[in-house]
């Protein structure tokens, strides 16, 4: 399989993208309400619902399947709640008990149904779907022919089902956005405002069950779980507001579905290998997106927080270096006392201070006038804090140094203008322009 073929790839890709968007949209509210695993539980426990609906109605029509799944989804939520409340079982364990028993029931039922013959309900297909069955035989060769009315007739039922489900989920979220947002962040307030957060919760769970069943035929339940959780989790790491989070999660779902599909078909094809399972590959793509967000998120990522910590450490080391030089000059010692900085950090701090014009470039380094001003402020804050901790907080004079050593690096300083610190050393008076100090007493 080389490149993108309309016949082979159009409808499977469309189905995968629609399933991913539906789940990605609903997943935002699950992740916010810490119910991610409810999606996992429901997608396991719709299995018996599907089989029982099939046995009762003797048909595989989407409506029957949807009803079965919706009933199973709500039953899961209710049962988990019952086990949790009545049995006083820990929430995670309650969920584990309910969904594994229901799933086992589903597996057992499916094996009985199989024995009746001519049934294509298959436990494996529930897990990872059958995207390849959506391939379009008799597809036109060119893109322009796609726009003919005949194309619409060729669209497989699964794609229509998914389209309907996506439309339903979008309308649900758009119409109840305000309520969903409130219920996600403060269910108690939501209920006291006059709409029922539990009712909304059940409606959401019905939709999750619906999304699961609409998707399971095409992409399987494992992708449903991945798409319910991963795009929303990645978006949660990238944004701090709900609307942008939803937008980012939809984009992530789209990228994961399309990228995973291409990764499953085109990439092995390029190496002359057979295609791998597309649903699994999309889950992996979603995982890659989460990993990317974990590493590179501008506010919450590993890289940015490492850079922030590094910058803070450098500024602290620079303060300590300047204050050490100031104290040495004050006591007439030729070299500053040991600052506790390693040689590497000392070199980095003095380089930074030189570039900022706080240290002279010659050897030995001396404080420039600007450097002396900065150092004086650090020492002043240190001694003011020591004074404050002894006089106002009642600490012993020999216990205040470590605290003051930390507080001197913040812009805060206690108000007042005492002459000396508890150790009898002079507190340098504030120079004009007055440094930004705030009254914290």
């Amino acid at each position, binding site marked *: 399989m080389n490149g993108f073929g309309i016949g082979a790839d159009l409808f499977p890709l469309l189905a995968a993208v629609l399933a991913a968007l539906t789940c990605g949209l609903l997943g935002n509210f699950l992740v916010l309400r810490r119910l991610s695993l409810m999606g996992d539980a429901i997608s396991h426990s719709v299995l018996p619902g599907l089989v029982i609906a099939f046995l009762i109605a003797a048909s595989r029509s989407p409506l029957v399947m949807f009803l079965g799944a919706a009933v199973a989804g709500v039953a899961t939520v209710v049962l988990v709640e019952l086990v949790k409340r009545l049995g006083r079982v820990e929430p995670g*364990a309650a969920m584990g008990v309910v969904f*594994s*028993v229901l799933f086992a029931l589903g597996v*057992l039922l499916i094996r*009985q149904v199989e024995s009746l013959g001519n049934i294509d309900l298959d436990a494996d297909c529930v897990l990872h779907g059958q995207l390849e069955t959506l391939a379009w035989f008799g597809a036109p060769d060119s893109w322009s022919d796609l726009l003919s009315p005949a194309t619409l007739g060729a669209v497989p039922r699964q794609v229509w089902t998914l389209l309907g489900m996506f439309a339903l989920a979008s309308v649900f979220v758009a119409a109840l956005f305000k309520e969903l947002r409130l219920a996600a962040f403060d269910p108690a307030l939501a209920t006291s405002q006059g709409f029922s957060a539990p009712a909304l919760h059940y409606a959401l769970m019905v939709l999750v069950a619906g999304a699961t069943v609409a998707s399971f035929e095409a992409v399987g339940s494992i992708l449903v779980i991945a798409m319910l959780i991963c795009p929303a989790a990645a978006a949660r790491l990238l944004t701090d507001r709900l609307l942008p989070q939803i937008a980012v999660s939809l984009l992530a779902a789209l990228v994961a579905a399309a990228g995973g599909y291409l990764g499953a078909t085109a990439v092995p094809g390029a190496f002359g290998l057979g*295609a791998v399972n597309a649903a699994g590959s999309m889950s992996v793509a979603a995982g890659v997106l989460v990993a990317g967000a974990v590493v590179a998120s501008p506010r919450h990522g*590993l890289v940015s927080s490492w850079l922030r910590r590094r910058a803070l450490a450098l500024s602290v080391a620079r303060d300590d270096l300047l204050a050490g030089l100031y104290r040495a000059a004050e006591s007439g010692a030729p070299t500053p006392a040991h600052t506790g900085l390693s040689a590497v950090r000392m070199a980095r701090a003095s380089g930074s201070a030189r570039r900022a014009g706080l240290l002279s470039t010659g050897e030995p380094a001396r404080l420039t006038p600007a450097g002396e001003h900065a150092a004086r402020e650090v020492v002043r804050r240190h001694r003011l804090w020591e004074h404050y901790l002894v006089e106002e907080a009642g600490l012993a004079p020999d216990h205040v140094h470590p605290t003051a050593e930390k507080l001197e690096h913040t812009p805060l300083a206690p108000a007042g203008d005492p002459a000396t610190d508890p150790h009898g050393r002079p507190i340098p008076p504030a120079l004009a322009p007055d440094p930004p100090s705030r009254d914290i007493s």
Partner: protein
Amino acid sequence: MDPGAIQPAPHAPPPVTGSLAEVADGLPGVREIVETLTLRAGFNTNTVILGTTLLGVAAGVIGVFALLRKRSLVTDALSHATLPGIGLAFLGAGALGVDGRSLPVLLAGAAASGVLGVVCIQALLRFTRLREDAAIGIVLSVFFGAGVVVLSYIQANAASGAAGLNKFIYGQTAAMGMRDAALMASIAGGAVVVALLLLKELTLVCFDDAFARVGGWPVGAIDLLMMGLVVLVTVAGLQAVGLILVVAMLIIPPVAARFWTERLWLLVALSGVIGGASGYLGSVVSALLPRKPAGAVIVLTAGAVFACSMLLAPARGVLAAGLRMATMRARIGADHTLEVCYELSLGGAAMSRERLSRLASVRAWPGWYRWLIVATLERRGLLSRTPDGGLRASEAGLARGARVSRNHRLWEQYLISHADIAPSHVDWSADQVEHVLSDELIAQLESALGARGVTVPGAGPGRAAP
């Protein structure tokens, strides 16, 4: 081929396919059932049954600690995360010239990727602001997806085919040979022995990890060891019950056992027994009947035990709790009725029909409940019905009403004088507390109030009304 079912005993009828009626014809005879149950049905079947039973015991014992550490769903992620390891171990072994289908190789791969999954969860929790539910869900779905990719790659490209790797998803006791079952049994047995040897350390960490840390115990290492035992059980159960359902064997028996006992050693023993019984029954049913996957039957058996435990357990069971609550509510209803009777009797009046209706509507009693209260009190001789539909309390009934009424007043006075609550706000609380004050507490209240010069007139407990 009939995945999931243990190979039938040699003289068993061959598995039938077709209509449900034929399935019914395939039911085993009594002799065969007894032989399988008593382990006389053939060496292979016996080994599988024994191995599964031992697996159930191990999962039950070790699941207790996972439950107490609130790690139930972490084990779910762990078991899903074993799939890519199985596939990669198969490919790696093939590349090294070892037989990729050798069970120890596959299980080693499964354990490695399962552990990697747990490490990923810990890293997500440690380094991001994602909550545990999202971290578990991400690892579960992404690792499982990766496993599906690897398996489909093997299916499409590996020369020797991946026949049999799928069995790890749903489990397949039919494919288990004697050696496989023995491997499973020895892993499970080893895990149980380690857990029992370290019972004290595991208990300490489960109940008070901060105390354990202060006491110098290596809490991190003990935690790690516990996760290691969970990995062992999961991996041991992969072939028999499959990676989706093996987690149920770790979760359900301890939760079911928890309803019956408050003591840890009993919990461990009970959970092991429940797990072992489920494993035994599941594998026996699967050996006797066609199309009964052992994993599903084991989980459903354990689920049935769970349901019975939740309903029937004497102290924590739903029925017992319901009964306690109903008894309590009936007593409170009777207290309220007699209290009103007593207060009316102070003015020389009996409770009229209208007054009773008002009481019922204030207390939101449905009609049948009001009838039940009155009937019970009447049977006990605490009150009698008057011809006009009202109630007249007997001496004993008035005494009980007086006691409740006095408790109410005592508690109100206590709240006003000792808890600084406004007099207009004490009625509601007193209305609830009046039913549960013990004699001892009443004596304490009397002396506390007496010390402040507050007296509440009326009889003390057990004495007749004035």
